[in-house]
C-alpha cells in the first residue's frame, strides 16, 4: 500500500523543488511557496518557519500571503511571539504589505499592547488611506491613548460623518487625541440656536460648519435670474454670519465655515462669463463676502473648500451618487484632503505650530555639491536645472513673513558655502535670513539640538529639510520630536512638499511675528556683545533695556492669545486661554491683565510678557504669568511683578498669591516666586501655591532697566 495522496503530493513537490534548485529554474519560488502552504495547512508550523527562514536566506521571495497565513496559524496556535516575529520579518522585507500591517495591528491589539497597536494603525492608514474607517472603528475598541485632547464638532446641511475617520487619523498623526461630535443631519441651525443642544453640551474646541450650496439656495440647480442671485447672496451672507455670531456668543470654540462650492457646470455654458447673472462670478462673490463677514468676527474662519476640491479634482471629489444615496457630498479622496486642510486650524489652536525650518544646502537649497563644483558650478538660476531651487527658496522666504525662522545645517566647509550665501547672484536666501548657521562636519542631530538651544525653542518646534535619506533617518531616530520631512528625490516637487505641510499656520499674524527674524539677528549681535562685556551687570547695563508695563487693551488680544498658547518655558500655570477668555478678563472688574513690552539697543521686542491677576477676598491671586523666551534672562519679569505688587499695595491688599504648576517644559519658571520673596503655602497634586506678605516684603526693579508705567 502506497502512502496517502497528501504525502505523495508533498514528496512530488519536494522532488520538483530539488530539481528546480539544481537547474536554477524560475519556478523555484512558486514551488517553495506551494510547499509552504501545504505545511501551514497541515499545522506543521515549525517546518513552515524553517522553510520561510531558509528561503529568505537564499534570497527567494515567497509571497506575502504565505507569511500572513503562517502568522495567523501561529496566532491561532496561541504563539503570539512567533506570529509577531513572522509578520515583522515580512514587513521588514516588504514595508508596503498592507495586509501584513493590518495583521500586525490585530496581533498587538490581541496581546493588549495598546500603544503599539495605535502606532500600527497609524502606519496602516499611511500605507493605505482607504483603511481610515477601519482604523477609526478599531481605535474605539482599543481604549484611550495618551496625548493632548482636542474636541471637534461637525455641523452640516448634508452628511459629513464620513469625515470623522480621516480627521481622526490626521489628529493622531500630530499627537492629538480627538473626541468628535457630529450634529444631527441638517440641524445645524437648531444646534446653534438652542442653548440646550448637544453641540454646547459637548463643549467643542473647534466647530467645522459644512454647508452645501444647493441646500442653502436650491435655485442654484436651475437658472437663477440676476435678481434671484442678488437676493440669494444677501440671504446666505446674512444667515451664515448671524449663525456664526450666535455660536461665538455661546461658545469659545474656533469656528471654521467651509466655502460654498458649485457641484456641476454653469447652465449658461461658455456665455457664463459674459452674462450679468454669471454663476461662476456669483459664487466668487458669495465666498468673498462670507470671508469678509467672518473676518470681522473673532475666532472665525472660511476654509477654502474649492481649493481643497481642486487639488483632488472636483469631479473626483464630489459625487452625485453619494448625494442621491446617502446625502453625502464628498468622496474619500476629497475627505482626506479636507481633513488635512482642517488640521491647519486645529494645529495652531492646540499650539502645534512649528517655529523654525532647518535646511540642508547641497541638493536642498541648490543642485549639486558646492565643495566640488564651486559657487559658479552649482545648479541655481533662472533656467532648469536650477530654477526649481530658486522657486523653493522663495517659498522658504515666504514663511519668514509669518514669523517662521530659517536655519542652516549643512556638512560643508564654511569657506565653500559663505561665498554662495553672500554673493551668488541667484540666491534668494542670504546669510541674514538665517537665524542660526551650522556649517560643519558634526552629526546633524547634535547640530539641530544646538540650533534649538540657541534659538531658545523646543525640538518639537523644528522642521528638518534634507535631500539625503541617511541624514533624515538619523534625525528621525535620534530626535523624533523634530518633524523630518520626506523630501522627494525630484527637486521640482520641493516647493509643493513644503507648502503642503500643515505645521506653519497661525490664527493671527502679529507685528512680533513679522519682526521675529530680525529680532533673532539682534540676539546674535547681543550674544557677541555678551562675550565681550566684562561682568554680567556691565553687560545688562550695556543693553539699555527699556520695559513698559500697562493694562492690556483690545488690540493686544491677538498677540496675547498667541503668547498664552505658545509660551512653554516661562509660564507659571500654562493656562491656554483663547480670545473669548481674554475678552472676558478685559471686561471683568475683578481681573487685571498686564502686558510687558521690552526694547533694548538692538531692537524693539514688542509685547513679550503678560500676567493675569484676580482679585479675591484677602488677596490678589496671580492666575498666569508668562514671558517669551526671547526676553528671558534680563529680569524683565521682575518689572512685571513689581507693577502687580504696587497696584495691590495701593489698594491695601495684604497678600499676593502665586501659583506654579510644573510641566515638562516650564523649569525656568520654577524659582520665579521664591526668587521674589514668596513663601510656599502648599502643594496639591503637584500644583504649588506661594504667597507674599505685602506688609513686610518688598520688590525692587532691577537697576539696569528703565521702567515705564502705562496708564489706565
Amino acid at each position: 500500500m502506497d502512502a496517502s495522496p497528501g504525502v505523495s503530493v508533498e514528496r512530488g513537490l519536494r522532488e520538483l523543488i530539488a530539481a528546480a534548485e539544481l537547474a536554477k529554474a524560475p519556478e523555484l519560488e512558486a514551488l517553495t511557496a506551494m510547499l509552504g502552504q501545504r505545511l501551514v495547512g497541515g499545522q506543521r508550523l515549525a517546518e513552515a518557519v524553517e522553510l520561510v527562514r531558509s528561503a529568505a536566506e537564499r534570497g527567494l521571495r515567497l509571497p506575502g500571503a504565505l507569511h500572513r497565513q503562517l502568522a495567523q496559524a501561529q496566532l491561532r496556535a496561541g504563539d503570539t511571539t512567533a506570529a509577531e516575529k513572522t509578520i515583522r520579518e515580512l514587513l521588514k522585507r516588504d514595508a508596503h504589505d498592507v495586509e501584513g500591517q493590518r495583521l500586525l495591528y490585530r496581533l498587538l491589539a490581541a496581546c493588549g499592547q495598546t500603544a503599539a497597536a495605535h502606532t500600527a494603525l497609524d502606519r496602516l492608514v499611511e500605507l493605505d488611506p482607504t483603511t481610515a474607517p477601519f482604523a477609526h472603528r478599531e481605535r474605539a475598541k482599543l481604549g484611550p491613548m495618551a496625548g493632548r485632547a482636542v474636541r471637534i464638532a461637525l455641523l452640516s446641511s448634508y452628511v459629513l460623518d464620513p469625515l470623522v475617520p480621516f480627521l481622526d487619523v490626521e489628529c493622531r498623526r500630530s499627537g492629538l487625541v480627538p473626541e468628535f461630535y457630529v450634529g444631527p443631519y441638517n440641524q445645524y441651525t437648531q444646534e446653534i440656536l438652542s442653548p440646550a443642544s448637544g453641540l454646547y453640551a459637548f463643549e467643542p474646541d473647534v466647530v467645522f460648519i459644512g454647508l452645501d450650496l444647493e441646500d442653502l439656495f436650491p435655485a442654484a440647480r436651475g437658472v437663477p435670474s440676476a435678481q434671484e442671485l442678488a437676493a440669494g447672496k444677501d440671504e446666505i451672507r446674512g444667515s451664515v454670519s448671524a449663525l456664526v455670531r450666535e455660536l461665538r456668543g455661546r461658545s469659545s470654540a474656533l469656528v471654521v465655515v467651509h466655502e460654498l462650492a458649485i457641484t456641476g457646470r454653469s447652465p449658461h455654458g461658455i456665455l457664463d462669463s459674459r452674462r450679468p447673472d454669471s454663476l461662476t462670478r456669483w459664487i466668487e462673490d458669495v465666498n468673498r463676502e462670507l470671508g469678509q463677514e467672518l473676518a470681522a468676527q473673532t475666532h472665525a474662519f472660511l476654509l477654502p473648500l474649492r481649493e481643497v476640491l481642486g487639488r483632488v479634482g472636483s469631479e473626483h471629489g464630489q459625487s452625485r451618487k453619494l448625494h442621491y444615496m446617502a446625502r453625502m457630498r464628498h468622496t474619500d479622496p476629497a475627505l482626506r484632503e479636507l481633513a488635512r486642510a482642517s488640521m491647519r486650524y486645529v494645529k495652531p489652536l492646540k499650539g502645534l505650530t512649528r517655529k523654525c525650518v532647518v535646511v540642508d544646502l547641497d541638493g536642498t537649497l541648490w543642485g549639486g555639491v558646492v565643495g566640488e563644483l564651486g559657487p559658479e558650478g552649482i545648479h541655481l538660476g533662472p533656467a532648469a536645472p536650477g530654477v526649481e531651487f530658486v522657486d523653493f527658496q522663495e517659498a522658504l522666504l515666504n514663511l519668514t513673513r509669518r514669523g517662521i525662522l530659517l536655519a542652516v545645517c549643512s556638512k560643508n566647509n564654511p569657506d565653500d558655502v559663505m561665498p554662495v550665501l553672500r554673493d551668488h547672484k541667484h540666491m534668494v536666501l542670504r546669510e541674514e535670513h538665517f537665524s542660526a548657521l551650522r556649517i560643519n562636519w558634526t552629526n546633524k542631530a547634535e547640530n539641530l539640538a544646538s540650533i534649538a538651544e540657541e534659538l531658545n525653542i523646543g525640538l518639537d518646534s523644528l522642521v528638518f529639510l534634507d535631500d539625503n535619506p541617511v541624514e533624515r533617518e538619523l534625525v528621525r531616530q535620534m530626535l523624533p520630536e523634530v518633524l523630518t520631512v520626506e523630501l522627494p528625490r525630484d527637486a521640482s516637487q520641493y516647493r509643493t512638499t513644503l507648502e503642503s505641510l500643515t505645521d506653519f499656520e497661525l490664527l493671527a499674524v502679529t507685528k512680533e511675528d513679522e519682526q521675529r527674524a530680525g529680532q533673532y539677528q539682534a540676539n546674535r549681535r547681543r550674544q557677541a556683545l555678551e562675550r565681550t562685556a566684562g561682568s554680567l551687570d556691565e553687560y545688562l547695563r550695556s543693553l539699555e533695556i527699556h520695559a513698559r508695563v500697562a493694562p492690556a487693551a483690545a488690540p493686544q488680544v491677538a498677540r496675547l492669545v498667541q503668547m498664552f498658547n505658545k509660551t512653554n518655558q516661562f509660564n507659571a500655570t500654562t493656562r491656554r486661554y483663547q480670545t473669548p477668555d481674554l475678552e472676558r478678563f478685559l471686561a471683568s472688574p475683578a481681573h487685571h491683565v498686564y502686558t510687558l513690552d521690552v526694547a533694548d539697543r538692538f531692537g524693539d521686542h514688542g509685547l513679550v510678557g503678560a500676567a493675569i491677576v484676580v482679585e479675591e477676598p484677602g488677596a490678589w491671586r496671580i492666575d498666569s504669568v508668562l514671558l517669551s523666551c526671547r526676553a528671558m534672562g534680563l529680569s524683565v519679569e521682575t518689572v512685571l511683578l513689581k507693577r502687580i505688587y504696587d497696584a495691590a499695595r495701593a489698594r491695601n491688599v495684604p497678600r499676593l498669591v502665586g501659583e506654579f504648576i510644573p510641566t515638562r517644559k516650564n523649569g525656568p519658571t520654577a524659582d520665579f516666586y521664591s526668587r521674589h520673596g514668596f513663601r510656599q503655602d502648599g502643594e496639591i497634586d503637584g500644583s504649588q501655591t506661594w504667597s507674599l506678605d505685602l506688609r513686610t516684603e518688598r520688590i525692587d526693579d532691577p537697576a539696569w532697566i528703565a521702567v515705564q508705567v502705562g496708564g489706565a
Partner: protein
Amino acid sequence: MGTVEEVVSRVFGVDPGGLDDGSSPETVEGWDSMGHLNLMAALEHEFGVSIDIDDVMEMVTVKKIREILLQYGVER
C-alpha cells in the same frame, strides 16, 4: 484585479478565509450602511465600473455582488 472576497476583506479588515457566498452585513463587522458605500466605492475602483443605485441596493451578499458584477462584464 482581486476577487470580490478580497475586496470585502480589505474594506472591512476581516480574514478572507472567513468569507463565503453568504457573507453579508449580518455576518461581517463594519458592513453597515456607511460601510456598504465604502465597499461599493472599492468595487468600482477595483473593477473600473460605476454601479447603478438599484444594483447597489441589491448587492448585499458576496454571491449577489458577484452575480451583479457579471452584468457589468466583470467575472471574478
